[in-house]
């Protein structure tokens, strides 16, 4: 065996390079290619692309690197479904580019945080997490309350996402600025009524919009499915 290797492979760099290329390709091909076919997770019913304001919030979530401390994946264990809600199915992530499952829970999972708390909770939490969550080590994010969102950037995001398969129509992209305004006004109205001062163009409003939809559709879809089959949650 070692003689064969010595005489036929070690003197032939091309043979060695080709052999290496073939061997490193097999595993990836076997594992990844099927996911593009029916062997991959089927899209979950009721999952919709994010609205213009929500996708703007997601871009901020990416920018701030939230995924280095927060996961978005509830594992199928009772201790996790008690703490967070229904466990995460593959099909609920179909419109996630990039995925944000995370690898470390310095803070809690966020896959089901949508509509768990009022908008005002998130407003206070992003300003200073200790106000709502005693003992938290999360940074303060004062700049989210000052920096403003740019609908043109959101349109660029939506256009790029539509090219990778997220079903945004041209009409949706065109009406993004108006849609953002409408959704932001609703959030700001609620916040103002609760005594919190901000305006529609602030990043915090987009972040709240993004966080408040996390897992909402997936949870509804999973619960509807369970109601049909009578399974556990």
């Amino acid at each position, binding site marked *: 065996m070692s003689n064969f290797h010595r005489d036929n492979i070690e003197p032939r760099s091309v043979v060695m390079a080709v052999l290496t290329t073939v061997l490193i390709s097999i595993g990836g091909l076997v594992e990844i290619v099927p996911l593009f076919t029916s062997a991959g997770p089927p899209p979950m019913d009721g999952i919709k692309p994010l609205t213009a304001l929500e996708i703007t919030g997601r871009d901020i979530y990416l920018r701030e690197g939230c995924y280095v401390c927060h996961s978005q994946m509830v594992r199928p*264990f*009772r201790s996790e479904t008690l703490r967070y809600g229904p*466990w995460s199915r593959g099909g609920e992530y179909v419109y996630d580019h990039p995925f944000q499952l995370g690898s470390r829970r310095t803070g809690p999972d966020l896959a089901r945080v949508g509509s768990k*708390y009022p908008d005002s*909770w998130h407003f206070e939490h992003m300003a200073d997490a200790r*106000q709502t969550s005693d003992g938290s080590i999360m940074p303060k994010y004062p700049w989210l309350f000052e920096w403003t969102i740019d609908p043109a950037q959101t349109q660029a995001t939506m256009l790029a996402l539509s090219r990778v398969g997220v079903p945004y129509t041209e009409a949706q992209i065109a009406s993004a600025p108006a849609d953002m305004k409408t959704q932001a006004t609703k959030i700001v109205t609620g916040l103002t009524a609760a005594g919190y001062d901000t305006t529609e163009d602030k990043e915090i409003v987009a972040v709240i919009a993004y966080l408040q939809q996390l897992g909402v559709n997936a949870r509804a879809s999973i619960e509807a499915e369970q109601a049909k089959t009578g399974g556990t949650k």
Partner: protein
Amino acid sequence: MSDQNHDKIMGHAADNDGIEEYDNALPNWWVGLFLFCIVWGIGYAVDYHFISHRSQAGYYDVEMAEAAVKWPAPAAGSVAPLTPEVLAEGKEIFTQNCVACHGADMHGKIGPNLVDDVWIHGGTQADITKTITTGVKEKGMPTWEPILGPDRVAKVAAYVFSSKEPPSPSPQ
């Protein structure tokens, strides 16, 4: 193990910038480990998918079914007794989980006032227990039952119920 090997020199040094290599055999235990891991891996995969037909969803269902037997859900409408121990424990649970929104003085902040006469979702002890258990999704009141568990929910509800009449009596 070096004694069992000959330490025979391969004679590769000229090609290896002077680094020589021995013709020593693969350690037996290492070969055994390699084969064991391969056989075990194949056996595990075949068993998991084709013999025992296991799945992570299946494991979860079993875990939940076992828990339902071990810890049956409390009867609907059951409330905790208003004993000093229960109220003291309820107060601690309130301090840890509820003050962020309802305030340490229970006068409300993100969530509503809990010591006035206004009860949006009913003011009996059973009502309060139910509201905490299920939450109020549209108002952002979390569903506390899975997080705290029915036992703690009943205790904190007892504490909130006992605190509602002004002047708020400190339990005993």
